[in-house]
């Protein structure tokens, strides 16, 4: 389990990173997914671009009601409170359930989202927020709504010459309700079903169902789910026509329990 030969580039600034990208190189953030794929020779890029030393790759800034999270911000930083307020508390709760601390120390929010494994935590959770992925290309930054970012299994709306620069999420009021539930048989196992529900006063509640073998399912108005969690979860999941009855039961349970958790004002 050693990688095939590859080149290693460590750009000093973003334009250099983008020019490397145009030559077909593969960006590397925390390496917690790409690393094993290289070792298993499932990925054999000619060059790996190490993004970790680029200015502003990691870090959090709040401005104009939005929180901008650098793509290179690690799960551990988020777990440890890098993001302020109610939004930060919610994301810290998600981050602390990602794999193990050793993975969280290196893995990044942007790397995970751009990798677009349907079972990954950020892939499942971020579409629940009315935010955007910030893509950086030759002509500057482009905003992609998070609900439209992941298109399929390891497939995103990023163009080949773009890199994920940051994630922008709305600052949330303290009374925003949040429920998140996922099924793993042990920490570190890929989730078999993830659901989350966000209810911000004055806005229609949103829900996401993920870790399916397809892009996350965004429920833009989850009012009915919050009103009747069990029945509505059953109705939604029946519509997915999942073949494996166990997975169907898990997905139904995930949605049901995430909705209940939102009522219980879970962190």
């Amino acid at each position, binding site marked *: 389990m*050693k990688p095939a*030969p590859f080149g290693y580039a460590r750009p000093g600034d973003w334009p250099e990173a983008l020019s490397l990208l145009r030559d077909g190189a593969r960006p590397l953030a925390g390496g917690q997914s790409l690393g094993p794929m290289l070792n298993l020779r499932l990925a054999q890029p000619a060059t790996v671009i190490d993004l970790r030393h680029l200015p502003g790759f990691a870090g959090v800034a709040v401005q104009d009601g939005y929180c901008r999270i650098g793509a290179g911000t690690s799960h551990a930083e988020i777990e440890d409170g890098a993001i302020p307020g109610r939004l930060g508390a919610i994301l810290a709760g998600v981050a602390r359930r990602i794999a193990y601390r050793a993975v969280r120390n290196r893995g990044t929010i942007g790397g995970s989202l751009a990798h677009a494994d349907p079972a990954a935590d950020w892939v499942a959770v971020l579409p629940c927020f009315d935010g955007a992925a910030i893509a950086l290309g030759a002509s500057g930054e482009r905003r992609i709504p998070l609900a439209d970012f992941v298109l399929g299994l390891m497939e995103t709306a990023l163009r080949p010459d773009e890199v994920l620069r940051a994630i922008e999420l709305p600052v949330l009021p303290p009374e925003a309700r949040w429920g998140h539930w996922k099924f793993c048989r042990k920490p570190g196992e*890929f989730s078999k079903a993830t659901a989350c529900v966000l209810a911000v006063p004055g806005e229609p509640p949103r829900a996401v169902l993920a870790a399916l073998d397809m892009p996350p399912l965004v429920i833009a108005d989850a009012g009915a789910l919050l009103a009747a969690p069990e029945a509505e979860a059953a109705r939604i999941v029946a519509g997915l026509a999942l073949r*494996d009855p*166990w997975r169907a*039961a898990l997905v139904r349970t995930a949605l049901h329990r995430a909705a209940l958790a939102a009522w219980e004002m879970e962190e």
Partner: protein
Amino acid sequence: MTAVGAADAPPQGVGASLRRKEDARFLRGRGRYVGDITQAGMLEVAFLRSPVAHARLLGVTKPEGAEDRVFTAGDLLGVGAIRAASNLAGFRVSEQPVLARGKLRHVGEAIAACVAPTRAEAEDLAAACTLDYEELPVVTDMLAARAPDAALIHEHWPDNAFLETRREEDLSDLDGIAAAKVTRRLRTARHCMAPLEGRGVLAEWDPRLEQLIVTSSAQMPHVIRTGLAEILGLDEAQVRVIAPDVGGGFGYKGILLPEEVVSAHLAMRLDRPVRWIEDRLEQLTANANCREHHYVVTAWADREGRLLGVEVDATVDAGAYSSYPFSACLEAAQIGSIFPGPYTLPRFRCRTVSACTNKPPILPYRGVARTGVCYAMETTLDALARQLGIGTDAIRLANLVPPEAMPYRNLVGKVFDSGDYPEALRRAIACFDLDRLRARQAAGEYVGFGLGIFCEQGAHGTSVYHGWGIPMVPGYEQALARFTPDGGLELRTGVHSHGQGLETTLAQVAHEVLGVPTARIRVVHGDTALTPYSTGTWGSRAMVMAGGAVAEACRLLGERALAIGAVLLQAGPEAVELAGGAVRRRDGSAAVALEEIARTWYRRPQHLARDVDTGGLEVTAGYRPDPDTGTHSYACHAVIARIDRDTGAVALEDYVVVEDGGKLVNPMIVDGQVLGGLAQGIGTALYEEMPFDAAGQPLAGTLADYLLPGATEVPDVRLDHMETPSPWTRFGQKGIGESGAIGPPAAIVNAINDALHRFGAELTDLPASPARVLAALEAGRRR
């Protein structure tokens, strides 16, 4: 002789919970494993492995320009195949080529060895090879393997079976007599042993000694040496096997692997040190397979639950080859002899098949067949109890061998040495508030209580193994004990310690006999050049066998020291004794320390008597218990399991083990052994499974897919010990190393079924994954 130190010195002998001597280096990261060892000019090996489960191998094209760095079967002149025969009637021996020859019989089978200065470059070479093969129909299921139209894996065999055994007994009258009869089909999953450190080997040829030096992550270095010498055509003295620190064995590291043979051959042929370090992908998909059984069990009982008879049809998926030295029949042979368990079973019929399939060979894993057998017997007993409407405790108490019958010879000739099996059961049950549990069940909670009780034969010797005729039969265990010139004590033993704590416990044994402080005792192991021959560490035997041998060697050494000491004290032999690390006059008037006695023998021989024993202060002694049919430790596992009815997930609320390992040499180490085994047993019960698709592709290639229980999956276990000495061993100790891994599947699935049966559901297949639990509940709902 008992050690008498200063009155307030903490005890160090047999029975003391001494901290492990070896932990000083392990906890500091100072252990030294094969992967830590390099040699100048060393080459690394990567294997090109079969991508398919069954095919005719037509050719291998080596990368252009790299023909001299890639080796296939045709390049290995003078290297034999691995043959692990058995003389059980009808056994068919397979030829396991060390590199595939003519046919590919499982995914991951080694086809070519590629060498390069680094492993990555060696893998590049393997990736650049091209294979030409013609796929054949695949046999992935052990039951389908026996179908008349199944493809033959070894084409000169009449069918895909290594061995069939039959113990016939006519049970046809039982239907008319019995108050209850149940039949169950049960399966245990194929899984993979997962020691933290995988296999690894570093081979080099020493031209001065004309010797092949093989540093291997091995738990049975002497047996590996014998196997290597035979296959490579060398004198055994031309092979030295060193097993340095080894990160867990569990049976896997007793096996002679094709990769070891190839690496050793290449070291000689290339005259360069050659190293192969197994990675996790190789371990999971090509090598460390174990455990896969299928049972059809029928049991009859009278109204009180007394067993009238049991009939078993067992199939073991033995994979494609018979592995060295335990052969492909170890599991099935054990099933036939241990199925009656700790019970007074009056009648027994048992047929076993060791089926050959297109999967890696099945290897013995901690507990070997006992884990599956205990699961089959104990779940069947619970089904019987439910049918009779009696308690699961009552049915066991009606059948357990009573203490007054010990030693007890059961109907297949197993002799249980000592113990109070019913008491273990009662103690375990007394740890729980079962009324509260029944109330929770009545309130609709999905919770249940399960029991699993078993005995574990350990340290069984010649009389048990000779009949099988496998390449390795244990005999007398030897140990060497000697004083160094400065009065330290050195013990040399052919067993290997890779988690068992033998560097501590054997020192405790020596301290018990000679009174030397354990800080001054060094245990040398893991090198065939430095230690007496031993079959090694397996079968829960080391503490009984090596412990007995060390005690005997120390006893004889003590006599020699006593004689020298008597002369130095100018006393007659009857006027002195050995105590507290010194030879003392019995009247207390004078003493001479063992250090002084050692100094005299080695460096001041002018003070020795003329008639001194010229063997000096070095003794090799052999030991074997009499009878050598083995010790039987036993344990009762009891657990409360809670089931999430929406997801099928199982949580273990409370787990109790009552264990009897006879006299415990170091109770703290025994606790560690039981807990470690228990974690593995929980893996067998709930998590571990290597699925194969219809084409024979293993589907769990990483530890993200192959689930092992971790710290968050193993509950806080309550351990209780009984201590019934074995009448046959040196200190009354019993083999207990595998015990923890045997009981969990039985106890946990019984607890699950106690929860499920009220909903018409019952689980029969391992592991009890959420999907299986939910499917059982769904089937119950439809019923």
